[in-house]
């Protein structure tokens, strides 16, 4: 029995090694092998960023923490459904975080309350909750805020941190779909120059 499992494992390893040899894939591989240390690494490196997403959708602290936990549990259970061909691990995790947070708000009927806040209120909220990044090398939030214009940042944040679809934004703020997309594109391009990507 032992040798059979070893064989299966080795086969598994080789199959993944066929794809890009990046450290991310190594991490994914170890997660698939249910390597606890890999999950710890994942948590240490990404929990704060994911919490940033979750807590902006679910403002209540304790509830947000619950969602973060659920998020990592879901990542742990569902790692085999991550498809590296489609994109990066973080994009996949962020999506899980966002969706869990949105589900939470729906279950507690937060939705109408949250979306009724006008864009001005939202940016005020942002200032109150700002905390410095745990990674000192990361670009400062202030630098980003100064780099993007208000429209661009609002649109990006509504989508990325609140989970609005482009259709929802277009409808609610009375902006044509094309404008939404192009503003986001412009904003993202600015971000990329700030980040040197």
């Amino acid at each position, binding site marked *: *029995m*032992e040798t*059979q*499992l070893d064989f*299966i494992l080795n*086969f*598994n390893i080789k*199959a*993944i090694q*066929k*794809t890009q040899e990046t450290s991310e894939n190594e991490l994914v591989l170890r997660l*698939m092998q*249910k390597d*606890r240390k890999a*999950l710890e690494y994942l*948590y240490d490196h990404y*929990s*704060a*960023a*994911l*919490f*940033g*997403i979750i*807590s902006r959708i679910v403002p209540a602290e304790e509830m947000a*923490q619950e969602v973060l*936990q659920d998020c*990592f*549990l879901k990542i*742990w259970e569902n790692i*085999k459904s991550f*498809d*590296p*061909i*489609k*994109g*990066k691990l*973080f994009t996949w995790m*962020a999506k899980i975080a966002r969706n869990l947070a949105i589900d939470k708000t729906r279950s507690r009927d937060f939705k109408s309350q949250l979306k009724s806040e006008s864009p001005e209120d939202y940016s005020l909220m942002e200032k109150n*909750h700002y*905390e410095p*990044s745990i990674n000192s090398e*990361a*670009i*400062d*939030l202030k630098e980003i805020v100064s780099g993007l214009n208000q429209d661009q940042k609002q649109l990006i944040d509504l*989508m*990325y941190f609140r*989970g609005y*679809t*482009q259709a929802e934004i277009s409808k609610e703020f009375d902006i044509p779909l094309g404008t939404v*997309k*192009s*503003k*986001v*594109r412009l904003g*993202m391009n600015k*971000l*990329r120059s700030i*980040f040197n*990507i």
Partner: protein
Amino acid sequence: MKTEEYISSGVLELYVMGSLSPREEVEVEEMAAKYPEVKEELSKIEESMEQYAVAHARKVPQTVKSNLFSKIDGKEKTSPTMSVVKNDVEGNSGFGANWLVAASVTLALLTSIASVYLWSQLQAVERELGAIKLANQQLAESFDQTNNELQSTKNYLSLLKNNSTQFIQLKGLEIAPESEAIVYWDKASGDVFLNIRQLPLPPQGMQYQLWALKDGQPIDAGVFETNSEIQKMKKIEGSDAFAVTLEKAGGSPSPNLEALYLMGKLES
């Protein structure tokens, strides 16, 4: 160039942020699979979105981590894992239960391996598809070529069968007595076909030229190559004889009679 428009539309940004419908997402994934520049752009957007998220990170209390991992450890203890299976195999518990646990573990592992294996296979299949498409293209090109050759051969055969076709044998002259050629001339249509049996390779920068001779006047019938194919020459209305001279590459308006290689008269 079509991808430029696609990329600058902003749809990729929306994809990364998760604001597209499932159907729109599939579209993006298809584009990324098809065009490497789309995939590349997507990667870059993902990277910067990650940085953006990191910049907006918020501290998490330690308690969350400890709660999480006690849950994880609890799960791993109760649900089947490899370590559990190893222990049981050596232990004293009932054989039946062991076997079931081992079997379910194997099944779970196999399922996850299958999915991993499948997406690595998908990459291999995509590469193969690319190679097949290329081979297909090359095949289509060679088919066209073969088709053209077939058409020429058909023309030649119909010419041979034709009653109005004249066969003129060209014999080698002093310069190259071994030379031999045949001209097939269809008097009705004027089509001329040349079959070179033997002719020395022309020197660099020179080419052989066929002439039709009518009433002593040379008429240009075109230049030709010395490979063995039947070649179609220029149309000739009336002729008494045919001759071949060696000229400068591209031919000349009147023949160089010092370089006369082949000659043949029509039977009258």
